[in-house]
């Protein structure tokens, strides 16, 4: 069943179009910066962009920061929201179930497919942006990037304003191996964060037969979370919001790695994934399939 779902994923034009679009945005940004040499000054604009001009191999981090707030969650919510609701809308859900495919098995196969899609998207963005970055800006030896004295004493705890401090990593040497490890860590945390989105969308996908309803429902949850994250009055619940530690992956690029938010980020997403998958399973396995 998993093979069947993966086949459907790769044979679907939407999969590739969305990934190409995700990769195209950072590439376009890189080209604009390379042509104009107008990188945002440190502390403004998307994270890492100011550092990229000096070292193209940092561009994957900048690219992930570009697609993470909107484009990646939209793509993931659409794919995950489509998983059950899309089959219901096209009428194929009932034919899969009478084949028979067990409901739990179908849900598991859909989940694996979504994970594969998320990995595919994140890794594609990382690879294309690395190639673009190195091609356009060159790969400076890490120590050359350094601006002595820029290593900040007090590391900012919130991820949101980390854009400026991104250059602080260049205060210390990063070997290529270290850079790869850190990018891998960032990819892992982003993937897990996207799985949190996917779990919410998958749950909603079992509730409604409308793909857009499920996808937009998940996105609405994220937007709501973003609003509350910036609201001081909501400080009590902030540690539990799904997007609270989304940007914690930036901490992988600090020297030394600042683990606290990264661990919390993994933890909170694991809880969201578990809760919403359990809810999706409970709902789907007892639901009347009338579509």
């Amino acid at each position, binding site marked *: 069943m998993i093979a069947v779902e993966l086949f459907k994923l790769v044979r679907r034009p939407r999969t590739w179009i969305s990934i190409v679009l995700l990769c195209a945005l950072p590439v376009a940004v890189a080209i604009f910066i390379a042509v104009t040499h107008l990188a945002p000054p440190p502390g403004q604009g998307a994270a890492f962009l100011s550092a990229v001009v000096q070292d193209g191999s940092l561009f994957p981090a900048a690219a992930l920061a570009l697609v993470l707030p909107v484009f990646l969650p939209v793509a993931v919510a659409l794919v995950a929201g489509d998983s059950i609701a899309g089959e219901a809308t*096209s009428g194929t859900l009932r*034919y*899969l*179930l009478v084949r*028979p495919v067990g409901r739990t098995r179908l849900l598991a196969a859909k989940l694996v497919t979504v994970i594969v899609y998320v990995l595919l998207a994140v890794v594609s963005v990382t690879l294309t942006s690395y190639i673009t970055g190195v091609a356009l800006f060159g790969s400076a030896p890490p120590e050359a990037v350094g601006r002595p004295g820029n290593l900040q004493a007090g590391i900012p705890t919130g991820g949101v304003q980390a854009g400026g401090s991104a250059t602080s990593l260049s205060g210390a040497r990063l070997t290529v191996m270290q850079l790869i490890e850190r990018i891998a860590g960032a990819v892992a945390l982003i993937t897990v964060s996207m799985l949190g989105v996917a779990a919410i969308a998958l749950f909603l996908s079992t509730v409604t037969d409308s793909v857009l309803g499920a996808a937009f429902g998940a996105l609405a949850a994220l937007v709501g979370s973003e609003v509350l994250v910036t609201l001081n009055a909501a400080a009590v619940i902030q540690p539990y919001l799904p997007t609270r530690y989304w940007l914690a992956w930036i901490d992988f690029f600090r020297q030394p790695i600042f683990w606290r938010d990264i661990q919390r980020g993994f933890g909170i997403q694991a809880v969201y994934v578990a809760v919403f998958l359990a809810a999706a399973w409970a709902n789907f396995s*007892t639901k*009347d399939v009338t579509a």
Partner: protein
Amino acid sequence: MIVTRSLTKQYGAVLAVDSVDLDVRPGDRYGLLGPNGSGKTTLVRMLLGLVFATRGEIEVLGKPVPRRVSEILPEVGALVEEPAAYPHLSGRANLRLFDAAGPGGRRRDRRNRIDDALEQVGLGGIDRRPVKAYSLGMRQRLGLAAALVRRPRLLILDEPGNGLDPRGIRDFRQLLIDLNAAGTTIFLSSHLLGEVELLCTRVGVLDRGKLVLQQDLAELQAPTGRIIVESPDVSRAVALLDGRVEARTEATLVVRHDDPAALNARLVGEGIRVTAMTAQHRSLEEVVLGLTSAGSDQVSNRRPKAGPVGSEPDR
């Protein structure tokens, strides 16, 4: 093959299916009739474990649904309402996907049975066009092929004739009769009375969720004890058969009589010319329309006329 006891499905305040005791025997070609909205589709979905019953029991192939539905369904072929397929893939790719999603079978067996199923429904020469380019009839055939792929012991078909042209309907009827002769039990729901009359050996009639009739078609169509006589000499025939004639027109008579041969001999013996003579049977249409109310798609203030029904339903 299919047995239900007091099967009931309630959606909120609406009783979609109300205490239905279905009995489909091995070898039957069973036609479930009923107006739109009478609960046919909900009933079919419950048999397949798609919709869970509010009350009552279901047994298909001798095993309870939905508890052991995963053992039952590999031996059941199903078409539920319209057929559905992944539109950007070809018909063959769709069948391969659906077949691969289910359990069992070596790669070669799977390929062979897909080819067989496509051949059976008249799509043997199908090309690589995606399903979105298919006509309604081709989609219906593809849906039937998907139901036939596993060479099921039981076919559960919901409105299988939809979208087929007259030749397609005839081919499909013949296909079902052949499959039935080879041992497949067939359960289909339809609102096409004529089609069911031609195809089925047993009928059930649903009306507003209740099974109001379940009987062998042959019994239902028992002679009414009337003979329709066509003759150019109507007046002389009436004089001869005085008292037995129930209705007359210019060239036909309805005569109360049990034996067409005897009646014919008597008329001809008196020199009355007879053009045609048929024993009258109740038509399925009369029976069903007499038992059912207007479909849910018809919104009218008038109550449907109660039709003449010769006999009570057997339950």
